């Protein structure tokens, strides 16, 4: 990506998080703590629907040069991880987070039916909300994914949930509906404009943002002015991806809050639903680069270096070529192409690089991460992952 455009996005990400943090301090004055900031860190990156054929298979290695050449030799790698639940985004991520096969409304109309990792960690370790974040590119999710509907857990132990890409999408759509001119970008003025915009913010819900808490954190002026700022970003001359912005916002959250548990979900690859294979492959390459940059960031930040474990996995694969469900477009066939993918673990808990050939499952991730924090008495169907 063009450096000036990336800087612009980066500035937007910094400002967004800054605004959020400022508002949080206002709303929860005196309530914040930093418990957990010096402890073990976990980052989970789920990267939507990607087949083995386009990644860790001889036909796909060229799409993942960073994962394959740079990170694989340092990782505990699981070449076979199964999603035995519903292969929709909301259910797949909910199942990873809860350690149960969740079977919910695909578009996030209801909360997970069992506690999420966020809740287990925050409740057991008395962590503040700033220690649990889910930052997602995926518009199939909703803020309900941040906490379960369980009475003894629920939103008071949930995560901050943010959808940066949705913010951009809404701004683009609004820019069009307002008929604004989009020529002659004035990039120099952009950052000032963003700063001015972000001074007046409250409610992110309508923009796809959602932050737990009883009161809205950002106000209506924030909503409209943020949209205006991104209308201007539309004027630049090359593609900008939602995953790039998700990464930049996540990076800023890491720098500012160093959360104990950060879950990021990428979704550029989901352009496959519209049938562009080349754009799907471009999404895989973006994911590959961003995961590598994320790991470099982990190693450069004192709060993360030496104490962080990164889990990277697709939520599921995609349907096989020749399936009645139109192949790579979709992810609903009952077949290993859709259900069986890979997972990479790198960092503190993955001390001895290894390849674990034994098949594992998505629901094994929750008890494994809980176990890394000493939470072992959970009644979950999954088993701790071998090799960690």
């Amino acid at each position, binding site marked *: 990506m063009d450096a000036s*455009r990336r800087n612009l996005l980066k500035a937007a990400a910094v400002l967004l998080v800054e605004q959020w943090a400022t508002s949080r301090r206002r709303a929860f004055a005196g309530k914040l703590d930093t418990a957990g900031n010096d402890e073990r860190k976990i980052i989970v990156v789920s990267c939507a629907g990607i087949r083995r054929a386009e990644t860790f298979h001889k036909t796909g290695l060229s799409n993942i040069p960073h994962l394959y050449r740079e990170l694989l030799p340092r990782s505990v790698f699981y070449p076979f991880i199964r999603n035995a639940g*519903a*292969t*929709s985004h909301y*259910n797949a991520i909910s199942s990873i987070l809860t350690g149960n*096969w969740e*079977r*919910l*409304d*695909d*578009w*996030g*109309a209801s909360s997970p039916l069992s506690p999420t990792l966020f809740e287990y960690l925050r409740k057991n370790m008395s962590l503040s909300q700033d220690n649990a974040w889910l930052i997602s590119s995926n*518009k199939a999710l*909703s803020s309900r994914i941040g906490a379960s509907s369980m009475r003894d857990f629920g939103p008071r132990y949930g995560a901050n949930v943010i959808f940066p*890409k949705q913010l*951009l*999408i809404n701004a*683009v*759509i609004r*820019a*069009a509906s307002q008929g604004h*001119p*989009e*020529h002659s970008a004035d990039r120099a003025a952009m950052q000032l404009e963003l700063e001015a915009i972000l001074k007046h913010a409250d409610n992110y819900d309508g923009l796809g943002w959602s932050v737990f808490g009883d009161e809205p954190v950002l106000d209506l002026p924030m909503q409209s002015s943020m949209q205006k700022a*991104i209308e201007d*970003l*539309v*004027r*630049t*001359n*090359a*593609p*900008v*991806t*939602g995953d790039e912005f998700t990464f930049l916002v996540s990076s800023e959250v890491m720098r500012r809050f160093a959360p104990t548990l950060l879950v990021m979900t990428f979704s550029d690859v989901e*352009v496959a*639903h*519209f*049938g*562009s*294979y*080349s*754009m799907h*492959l471009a999404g895989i390459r973006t994911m590959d680069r961003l995961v590598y940059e994320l790991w470099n960031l982990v190693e450069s930040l004192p709060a993360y270096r030496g104490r962080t474990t990164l889990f990277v996995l697709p939520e599921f694969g995609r349907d096989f*070529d*020749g399936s*009645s469900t*139109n*192949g*790579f*477009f*979709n992810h*609903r066939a*009952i077949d290993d192409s859709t259900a069986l993918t890979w997972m990479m673990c790198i960092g503190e808990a993955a001390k001895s690089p290894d390849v674990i050939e034994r098949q594992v499952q998505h629901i094994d991730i929750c008890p494994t991460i809980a176990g890394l924090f000493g939470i072992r008495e959970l009644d979950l169907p999954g088993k701790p992952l071998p090799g960690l």
Partner: protein
Amino acid sequence: MNKVNAHAKPPAQDAYPRLIERLPVTLRPALNQQLSQWAMLFPFEQNRVVTFMDGVEALSPAAFQALTGPLFALEAKMDVRHWNFSEQADTIENASLLARSAYYADWRRETEKVFEGINAAARVSAPAQTGSTRLILLFLPASLPVDHETVWQQWDPRGQEIKISGDAGGICELALKGKPGLSGIATLLAGHGAAESSDLWLIDAAEKMNAALSSLPSPPAASSLSHTALKPFRDRFLAELNKAPKSIQITDEVVANLRRESWDGWNLWPAELVGQPRMRQFVIDLFLSGNGALIFSNSFVEWAACEALRRARPRVMVARFGMRSKPKPFTSIAVFENQQRISSLPDVDDPENSAVDALILARYVWLSASRYPEQDRTICLCVSEFSNTAYLIAPADKSPGWSTERSLTPEDVYKWLAAQIAA
């Protein structure tokens, strides 16, 4: 068996609802939907419904119970009775409820068993027009730069690469227009008893094929669709579809309303669809079924071809892929929007990536065709006009026996294809 021929009403319309009521709940929506849109079905689809109903009727009560009992039991375990499950039409919510059920894989298995059993009872395993050779002609235009070395690497190993001498674009021209002494495909089909327009499909990313057909002295019986020609309709339809909020139930309502909408009043249909309600309904159903048909021209070509193969089982399918534009800055994150509406930047062609898309999607058309029983008498030819090569997949008994070293003229290739159709 009650054979039908594109009738406005099913032959036993009073009996069918009663027969459908006997079936497990999860089988009813698709059948009810087909009955309610009977006049919009292609002859193959109508025959398939009639065959299925004949089969339901033919089963003895004991045999019917033995066949459907496991699916009824499964539906009870799935608690389908308490779902918000439409029996009148396939809906997004129906699909979502089924797919997230813990018994989804079992349900798929049992459903297939029931369909197979009922069709077997009707003693009909083959559709109409058995025996005739079928042809799938796929064109990757010269504007799509493919890699000469790898272009056919992923294709069915039963096929062979053919080198074309001269301009490979001549094959498409000949197929559409013919030349003195050599009939085009439409004329050939008409001369061999295929008068039904769903026997020949021409699906185009641009408008080349429509233009070629319209230059003929008399318009052939064909189902012709062009992504470019559909643009006014697509834009309007996309705008309406994008109003759907993020709710499965409400989206189902929006979809149902779009299906019921009287689109004819908008004057957005291209000329070739005037007076063709069945084709217009096909387009609406196509766009509502997603798969990028509203967004990218190559997705439209692929998905329309696959749906036409599934629903109409044509004698000849001609599909021509094309160019898409490069994603635009920022607006590419909202790819489901009309890019020309949300960005005033001019469209810029993306030949390399369009070629990547078109190549896999052309292969998907063949893979789709190869799922059906007719595949054992189907010839598929995919032509890359850029590389002046083609890939031919033919049943063993129809192999032309061409040497891979020999170059063939477009006329050589087309003559052979025409002879197969005429045989």
